[in-house]
Structures are given as C-alpha cells and as structure tokens.
C-alpha cells in the first residue's frame, strides 16, 4: 500500500498541499446544506439522520483524501480489477441479495449497505478513460474501436436494469456516452443513437415494470391521481412552490414536518431545503453545484494526460447527471426515478461513492503531470 504513495513523483506532504482545497470547501458547503436539511427533516434533531450522515461524511472525506493521494498510475493499473470486481458484485446481487424497495440492489456488509451499481458508475468511467487513454483520434473515428467501450457500458447497464433500477442504468449509459462523445466518436453515431432511442421508447415501455410504467404515466399527468401514484410529485411541487422566494424558514417547512412530503430525508431532500429556504436557498445550492462542475472542468483541462481528463470529466458528468435527475424529478420535470441528490441526501453508499469520485478527480489534479503509460 505504501508503495502506491512512495513511488509517486511527489511526497505525501506536497501532495496534501496540492489537494484542491477549494473543491473540498465546496463539497463541505454542499454537505452542510444536506446536514441542515436532515436536522430539519428529523424535526430539529441530529438523530436519526444528521448525526449519522456527518459520521459518514467524515469517513468519506478520509476515503476521498486517500483516493486522491494514491498515485494515478495505480488507479490506471487497478482499473480492470475494479471494473470486473464491480461487475462480479452486480452478478452477485442479482443472484443473492437483500430485497429492498422491491428491487435487489445492495449487499449488506454490516456497517454499510453496499450498492454495487454505485461502484459501477465509477468503474465504468475509469474503464472508458483507460480505454481511450492511448487512443488516437483516428482510432476513435473507427466504429470497430467503439465495440469495447460499448461492451464496457452495456454489460453493467444490462445488469443494473435487471435489478431493476432504470434510473441508475440510464445514468451509467449517459455518462458512458458522454465520455465516448468527448473522446471524439463520430457525431452521427450519437444522432442516430438518439433517433434510435426515440423509436425504441414505445417498445421498451412494454418491458417496463408496472411501477415504472405508473411512474411515467403519473409524470405525464400527476394531477390525474393526486392521492395515488402522483401524490409524491404533487406534494413535492406544493412544498417547493409554497416555499416562495424567502422560504418558510428553518424548521418551518410544513409539508415536510407534517409528513406530506414523502422520503424527505432521501430523494426529496432538495424539496425540503427549498421549502424552508425558498428560492434564495435553492439558488445557493444550485450555484454551489455549478461551482463544483466548473472546478472539475478546470481540473480536467489542466490535466496533461488523457486518462486524467476523461476520468475527471467523466466523473464530473456522472455527478452532474445525479444532480439533474434528482432535482428535475422533485420539480416534476421528469418521472420519479428514485435517485438521491449526491452529498445532500441521506444515504451511506451514495455519499461514499460521490466522495470517492471526487477523490479520483482530485487525484487527477494532483497527478496532472504524471506520465501515465499504456
């Protein structure tokens, strides 16, 4: 393990100085918003959510820094191990796993419920970054070169879809597609992909689970069933809208406090925040996310090697997809897919995965001058 650090180009202390403390600050800011909201969700109590979330965050920060300090060459070497390990875990949960929320999604390790799909999101980005690391533009333009990336993406997508977790599988697919796009794959591929998807949607709809179909239907017309499946969306919109510009005030969110808001501590935490802090609070959080995206973009551009660029941008894209999907869901822009808001929602795996992702991004920044060989 020490080898990982010692064989790097820089000392650990210098690396620590090189750590992106600005990004760390942004992450702490966003997490704080999450902790404030969880404190409010519990009716002004640290228990049961805020305190545990804080512990996880501290643990996650530790993991993040470790991940950032490890030499990027090691991550490059470990890529396939991580990828296939994650794939193996996905197969494992498919075969034997706990039944939670009607879908088999996690492995109970005792102290944490590990969701292999969360791990897979990072692993797919790493695998693609590694694959495109040494590739020339000419190679990428060849359609045959894209067969391996396609397999890298579709294998976990298929497994996650089987769980069944449509939201996560779509996110893996989109993040993967984003990296292939950035790597320089022909534009027509994406155009035809989008057109193809548009054609496939009605067909795919037939294969959706009943609850997924219902989610789509209630998304299209939430008021049709305000007490049934559309209840979540309607109540979330009421909470957001009633917050107004100034918000109802800390601990004063009636929708969440009186339990009209479903799953307020997890998927609908943004709603709780914006109900209590209003448009002002909502924009502050969105602004923080924007700064995080920008910071990651800056890191990617300063990176001298392709592996780091793809990794940083891919993970940032992954993170932003989470943010979009969660917030557009609670605002009623897309169907309820059951995705948490990273760093803010209560949940160990998503917190750990997000922080590990940021650790890798920072790793790209610290080791931006490293010579990553093929």
């Amino acid at each position, binding site marked *: 393990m020490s080898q990982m650090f010692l064989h790097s180009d820089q000392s650990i202390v210098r690396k620590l100085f090189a750590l992106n403390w600005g990004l760390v600050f942004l992450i702490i800011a966003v997490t704080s918003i999450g902790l404030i909201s969880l404190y409010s969700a519990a009716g002004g109590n640290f228990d049961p959510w805020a305190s545990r979330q804080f512990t996880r965050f501290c643990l996650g920060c530790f993991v993040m820094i470790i991940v950032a300090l490890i030499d990027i060459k090691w991550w490059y070497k470990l890529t396939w191990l991580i990828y296939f390990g994650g794939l193996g875990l996905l197969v494992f949960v498919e075969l034997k796993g706990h039944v939670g929320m009607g879908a088999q999604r996690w492995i109970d390790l005792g102290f944490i419920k590990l969701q292999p799909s969360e791990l897979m999101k990072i692993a797919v980005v790493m695998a693609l970054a590694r694959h495109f690391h040494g590739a020339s533009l000419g190679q990428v333009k060849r359609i045959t070169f894209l067969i391996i990336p396609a397999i890298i993406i579709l294998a976990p997508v298929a497994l996650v879809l089987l769980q069944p977790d449509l939201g996560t599988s779509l996110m893996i697919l989109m993040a993967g597609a984003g990296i292939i796009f950035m790597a320089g794959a022909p534009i027509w591929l994406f155009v035809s992909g989008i057109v193809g998807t548009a054609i496939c949607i009605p067909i795919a709809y037939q294969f959706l689970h009943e609850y997924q179909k219902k989610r789509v239907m209630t998304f299209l017309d939430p008021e049709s069933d305000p007490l049934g499946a559309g209840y979540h969306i309607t109540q979330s919109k009421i909470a957001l809208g009633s917050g*107004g510009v100034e918000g109802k005030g800390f601990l004063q969110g009636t929708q969440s406090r*009186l339990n009209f808001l479903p799953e307020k501590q997890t998927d609908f935490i943004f709603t709780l925040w914006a109900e209590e802090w209003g448009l002002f609070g909502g924009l502050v959080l969105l602004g923080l996310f*924007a700064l995080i*995206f920008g910071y990651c973009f800056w890191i990617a551009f300063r990176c001298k090697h392709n592996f780091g660029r793809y990794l940083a941008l891919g993970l940032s894209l992954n993170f932003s997809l989470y943010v979009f999907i969660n917030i557009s869901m609670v*605002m009623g*822009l897309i169907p309820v897919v059951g995705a948490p808001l990273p760093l803010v929602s209560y949940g160990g795996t998503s917190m750990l995965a997000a922080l590990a992702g940021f650790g890798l991004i920072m790793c790209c920044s610290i080791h931006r001058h490293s010579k990553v060989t093929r």
Partner: protein
Amino acid sequence: MAFREEEHAHNFSRRAFVIGFLQFLGLGILASRLAWLQVSQGHKYKTLSDKNRINMRMIAPLRGEILDRFGVPLAVNVQNYRALIVPEQTEDLKESLQKLREFIPVTEETIDRILKESKKTAKFIPLRVREDLTWEEVAKIEVHLPDLPGLMIDVGETRNYPYVESTAHIIGYVRSVSQEELTGDPLLTLPGFKIGKTGIEKVYDLEMRGRAGAMEEEVNVHGRAVRELSKKPMQSGTRVALSIDGELQRFVQEALSEHKSASAVVLDAHSGAVYAMASHPSFDPNMFVSGIPKDVWQAMNNDPTLPQTNKALAGQYPPGSTFKMITALAGLEAGTINRNTSVKCLGVYKLGRDKFHCWKRYGHGRMDIISAIQQSCDTYFYEMAVETGIDRIAEMAERFGLGKTLGFEIEEEKPGLIPDQAWKRKRFGNKWQPGETVVASIGQGYILTTPLQLAVMTARLVNGGYAVKPWITGYVGDQFKGAEQWPKIKVSDAHLAMVKKGMGAVVNTPKGTAYASQIIDENLGAMAGKTGTAQVRRITAEQRRLGVKNEELPWEQRHHALFVGYAPVDDPRYVCSVVVEHGVGGSSAAAPLAKKILEQVQIRDPAATDIYSFDKDKTTQDESVKRDMIGPFLPSREIGG
C-alpha cells in the same frame, strides 16, 4: 504524432465544452423551473400547502334555552356522558369492547358497527360506543379504566325538557337533521346536530341555534391534529322566555288527564299572553331527542286521541252554547233584541215545518238576555238569531276572533269555521236556510272553533272590548316580543256589560248552568263563564223519544263538553277555555276543570310578574366559554372549499 496529439486535444476540448455547456444549461433549466414554481406559482402552491395542513373543525354551538315567565327552564341542555373508544390505543378492539360489556350493556350491533367504522377511519379517531351513560355506568367505567385500554368518557350536550309531557306541545322538540332539511349550512352536517322540529323549538330554531365556533388545527398527513392554530369560540344560541307559567302549565296538564282527551288555554284577558296551553294526552319530547322506539311511534300515530297534536290550537270543535254570547251581541248590536226583550221557551222552537228543541225538554219559561245566557236557553237564541240573520252573527264572531287564525307563533294553529251566506253558496252552491241560522245560533252546525279562539273570544268579551291576540313569546334574547296594547272592537260597552252579567250569573246564581263550579274560596276572585255542550252527531228522534242518556253512548258519539270562563268576575284578568272531547256535558265535565284552573291561576297570579328578562344576568357569555371547553367531541371535518 505530436501534431495528431495536438489535434486530438483540440477535438477533446471542443467536445468537452459542449458537455460543460450542457451541464450549465441543465442547471439553468433547474434554476428557472425553481423560480417559476416559487415565484409565479408560489401563491397557488401556498394555498395548496395550507389546505394540506390546516383542518377546520367546527365547534357546535350551545342551543339557546327556553324559559318560562319566571325564568324556570322549559328546555335546557344537559350533559350527556358518552363512552368512546380509540382503536389505536387498544391492541384488540373487539376484545376491548367485549370486556366493556362486563361493566355496561353494549349490544352486538354496536360492536359490529364500531368494528366496521374502525376500518374506515383513522386509528386515532375516537368511535362512539354508547351515549346517555348513567352516573353509575360512568363510575364503573372510570374505576375499571386501566382494564379498558382505548376507552374514554366524553361529555356532550343533549336537549332536555324538564317538564316532560306538560310542555311537549308548546316547546316541541329537536331532532336530527334529515336529508331534505340540509340547506348547505355546514352546521347542519355536524354529527349529532339537532334542529327544532315542532313548537317553539321550530319557531325560533335559527335564533336558538347560535353560531358555530371554529378551530383551525394543523394536521399531519394522517389527519392527526398536531397543534391548534386558532380558535373562534362558538356563540350560544339566543335564549327565549315564554309567557307560560311552567308550574301552571303542569297543573293544567295534570287536571286534564282525568279525561281521555281534553285541552285548555289560559290567557291574560288584557294582554293576550298565554299562561298555559295544554292538550291531553301528550308525549315525552325527550324520546324524540334520543330516538323514539318504533313501537312507541306507531302506537302514537294510531292513537285516536292524537297525542302529537296540540288540540288547544289545532282541535276544531263546534263551540256549542259558548257561542251564545256572540249571537246575543249580534242581536243587541243589530237591535233585534234589547235588555228587555223576552221570549217564552216551551222546549221547542218551530220554524216552518222544522222543530228545534231546547236542551231543556219542557222549556225554560220566560227568558230575557241575561237569564237566557244564565240558563243557556236555546229557544231564546233560536228566535232572535233568525231575526238577526247569519251574516250579522258571522260578522260579530269574526270581530271576536273566530273563524280565522290569530297569527299565533306556533304554526299548528287552525282557523276554525264561521259560516255565512256567501260561504254556503261558495262551498255548497246553494242558499243559506233559516234553519241553519237556528242551528248556528247555539254554536252548532257548520261552526268550528279552537280552544284558543274560544279563549280569545272570551278575553275580548271581558276586557272592555279590546281585540287581543294570543302570544306566547316574551323575550327572544333581550327583545320583547309580547304585546300590551290592542285596538278597540266596535261594540257597545253596555251590550258587553249585559253579556258579562249573564256570564256571571251562569256560575254565581243557583239557576246558572255552572253553579256547581262556583269558586267559594273568599280569598280568590269569583269566576264567570259559559258552559257549552256540543253535539257530535244529530240526536235522532228515536233517541229523543227513548231518552237515551248521552254518557251511555260509545265514547266517540258523546257530546263535547266546553267551558269558557274568566276571573275575577269584577275585574277580569284571567281567561280560560276548556274542551273535553266527548265529555258529555259542559257543566259536568268542563266547568269543574275551568274552576280548578282559574283557582290555581289566581293563586299563582302570573300576571303580577313581568316576563323574565335577560338583561338581569350577564353570565351567559362566561358560561358559554366555559361550556365550550368541554364541548362535544366532533370528528374533524373540513368546511368550505
């Protein structure tokens, strides 16, 4: 190679910028959506949010009480102890209910109903097990409360009528609101809310209802109240004070109960205030409040003596000889008779080929206006009435309040009937016959009057000729609804004096028809009046020949017994009318009753006391607030949109 790397990097930057642009575009979309929801839609969602969390609960108002003229309550609200059970506080609802049966009686149906209700409502809403618990039952439950999880005792308000059947016809009763009676007033939809169905309860229902209070509660998603946001206390309904004397009313009711079916009215001769108005048989109005058993209801509806009808208002009877004062006045005013006109009664009066009998078989001999009233000689009136004519008699009857409703507060009032030539033509299409005038002169034939009208007629005869109308409402809140001043009737005082003299002689001279009912007590004013015996069916020649005694006939064929009277005779204050259905004779059945009543009313002397006015006590407000605290439990209910 370096060039290609360069090109690759350039290409990467371009593509990466597209992704970056999309990321910020996404955040922009989210920000504008948030602004749209919170700014332009904010008001709409704010309303929806409040609708979510705020539940309006109505607090039922306390119904205004009804008091008698002395302030004695005739209709009150009593606390009603109810057993309730909260399903969430008990592990096994059915078992808890079974356990409760060890202490108080609970029917199987009740248990079934509760189990059914518990499936439909939220678990924290208390369900009604039993109402009207006795003190003993309350005590039993309280003692065993630790063994009865989920059970609670709650106090509600129910209407109660302490005078029970004595005031049933006047006060009426309240009953649950039926579907047809819903007016959209949310108050009416409150569970257990009752409205006035008959009597004064109906007349002043709106005033006595009061105004519902409202409690705004914050509720959570399950509808459980989390905290109280605001409370507007209910306003008790207006109190009503009647002119009735409750104890006199009870006395009259009990006096009437010696007969199968009877009614009586006691009026103030000068103001028209009703002191008592009774109709026997009566019923227990409290039964209607709590729900009347079916068999009792059916028995009441099939009873020929009509217990539910206020016969003092709605019973229409031929007035018989009590009508003779009107006939006399019509003759005196028309000039067909005067003080000195005399007629010889031989027991029969012949008009053409028709024979009309006097009640006294062999006649009264020579009669003048005073003695004709005193001895109730029919022949005297037969003869003078034919000369006077029916229209004049009818017109006089109307001046004295007969033949039309008097605008009494309680709507049950019936108009009676005073026939004249025009009426006959209209009703039957043929001419009035002189024989019909003969029959009408002694209050028979078509003429119908109510006991109330007879009392009013008597009042107008003895009060100096003022057209009093009867009234029963003293105060509604602090508003006086009674009347003291009445217009004068166009009639000569001298003629009225003659009639009064005759009425005095009826009771106070040995030959008078009601001499047996003379008030002997020297402390009380003497009574005057007039007896009446009204035929229900024509006495056949056969019966007359055989001398069949009326009391031997079946009850429904016997004569009605009537009496109108007043006291004291010199300075009339109290007027009384009594009708005993099929009581055989006015002097034998009705006059003794009138004597008892006029004695009692003079002893109690209600006229000496003003009607209880609410200005005297201002405790009403505090009391209503206090009551509000323990007000009836009502399941939460949203009102309005």
